[in-house]
């Protein structure tokens, strides 16, 4: 369980996060939505300990986040950030193997190599394993980074501990086939005792996949709860300043948003 109490964060005079409190439960797929500059990525940085909040505290399973040694944190939580550019070229395998660094000393064990391959397989990138990372397209790079993060949290048999997965726009460069495949996979992961916090922009994907939605607006938590309760006409109009219409999916009966 992840608990944050009264977080706020400023850069200079600018308040980026204003008094946000929330609790994330393992087993629930949480999606974060909100307009550009609403503080979604900043909130992710605070919750992962990347930035230090001006006020407020963060607990991972009742333990203060900043009191957990980084090496232990690296085996519990994985973070996929936006916009990673590499000044030096590496092979796809080398990038994915970084996800296993918290688990081996200098050279990867057989087990780590198998896990890396398996995670590449999950995102459909195994055939690219020997390719230079720089030669990949944007979407392919995103899938490789995703495989790296999956490798970092890969559970050994018998490991039932809570894991924490944070993804900042993991599917922004993917085609719709992989958007759905990846989100389906992440939902399955969440079900296995994982706290999952994913920033997305597509409201329909949130309606389809999320168990729990956080709607951010101007640094504040606008609303949080199950998707059908949070993503209503009123809230979307208030936050995104666009009037939505909802229709019903002809097969599944799910709510679908049309603009």
């Amino acid at each position, binding site marked *: 369980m992840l608990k944050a109490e009264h977080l706020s964060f400023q850069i200079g005079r600018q308040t980026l996060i204003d008094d946000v409190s929330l609790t994330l439960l393992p087993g629930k797929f949480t999606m974060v939505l909100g307009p550009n500059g609403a503080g979604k990525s900043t909130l992710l940085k605070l919750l992962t300990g990347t930035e230090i909040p001006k006020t407020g505290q963060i607990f991972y399973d009742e333990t203060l986040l900043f009191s957990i040694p*980084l090496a232990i944190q*690296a085996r519990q939580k994985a*973070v996929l*950030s936006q916009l990673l550019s*590499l000044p*030096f070229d*590496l092979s796809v395998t080398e990038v994915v193997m970084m996800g296993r660094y918290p688990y081996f000393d200098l050279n990867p064990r057989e087990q780590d190599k198998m896990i890396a391959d398996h995670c590449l397989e999950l995102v459909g990138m195994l055939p690219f394993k020997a390719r*230079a990372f720089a030669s990949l397209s944007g979407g392919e790079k995103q899938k490789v980074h995703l495989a790296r993060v999956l490798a970092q949290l890969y559970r050994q048999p018998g490991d039932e501990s809570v894991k924490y997965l944070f993804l900042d726009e993991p599917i922004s460069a993917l085609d719709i086939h992989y958007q759905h495949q990846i989100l389906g996979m992440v939902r399955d992961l969440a079900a296995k005792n994982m706290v999952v916090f994913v920033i997305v922009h597509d409201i329909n994907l949130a309606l389809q996949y999320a168990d729990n939605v956080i709607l951010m607006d101007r640094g504040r938590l606008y609303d949080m709860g199950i998707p059908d309760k949070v993503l209503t006409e009123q809230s979307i109009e208030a936050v995104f300043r666009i009037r939505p219409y909802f229709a019903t999916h002809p097969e599944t009966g799910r709510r679908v948003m049309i603009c």
Partner: protein
Amino acid sequence: MKTPPLSPGQWYGTLTALLLLSIIAALRIGAVELTFADINHILLNGLGLSDTTVDPISQGLFLQIRLPRVLLCATVGAGLSVSGVLMQALFRNPIVEPGLVGTSSGAALGAALVFVLGKNINWAFTDALGLFLLPCVAFIFAFVATLLVYRIASVSGKVNVATMILAGIAINALATGGTGFLSYIARDPQARSITFWNLGTFSGADWTQLAIVFPVTSVGILLSLRFTKALNILILGEDEVRHLGYNIDRLKIQVLLLNTLLVAIGTAMVGVISFVGLVVPHLMRLLKTSDNRFLVISSALLGGSLLTLADTIARRLVAPAEFPIGVITAFVGAPVFIWLLVRNARSFQKGGFYA
């Protein structure tokens, strides 16, 4: 270039062979040519395994001058190259070399200070330090210079690479100015040794220097291996280093200290040698990969070989006089570097910096 790529192990094997060949070649060639038979006899005599009569002058030359010099050369080459790997990874920039952050010029200033004023200051500790005076002062100056650059760059809280590079230029200018001033006030023979030494020279190499440089460099290279995983992650970004379990601020300080150690010890003994720390890691990067685990080991081996070969050329070219080795490394290193740059800018195969 469509041959099957060599594995890291095969690379290490090839490079070790290259290093051994360079050392053997360097032992034979010089102002006085020695045959393999001579070298063999001298080595066996030295170990007390035989007592063949050899020309005592050759024997003295080989044991007292050439052997320590060649070994020192290989060691310094390895140290500078590994330091280049560390700095390029830390700055996330392939054009960085150890001299950039003020380490080399700081060490040079410290050493020049000892050269010029050393005999005039008779504090208690100068005697006690004895042989270690030069490397110690060089290390202190190198570290102060590096730390200054680092501090200026991190005024805003986080280390800013652009500021760091500019601060490096300023501190380098300051240190070079200081060295220039010292050589100006120095009496003639000292001044000449500073000038010569600013371009690097192995002409003063002996067993004592090797005894100081070799252990320090070996330990430094082994320690560097400990940081290679974290430095690999740094390719992705500073936040990722933290996400994968390392303290980024501590990592930066540790790597800077290690870099100072590797560069200052070598520089104190043989002077400023440019381009090795830049070109060697770069070559390995282009030939195989940017994985720092591979780069540290392979650059140490290749750097040792290349500097040994460069020194052999420096000794042979105008024998019995000799060239400053820095001139050779610059003349050979710069064109190779430019060729590599152009080739890669054209091929667009590599990403990041080259694309």
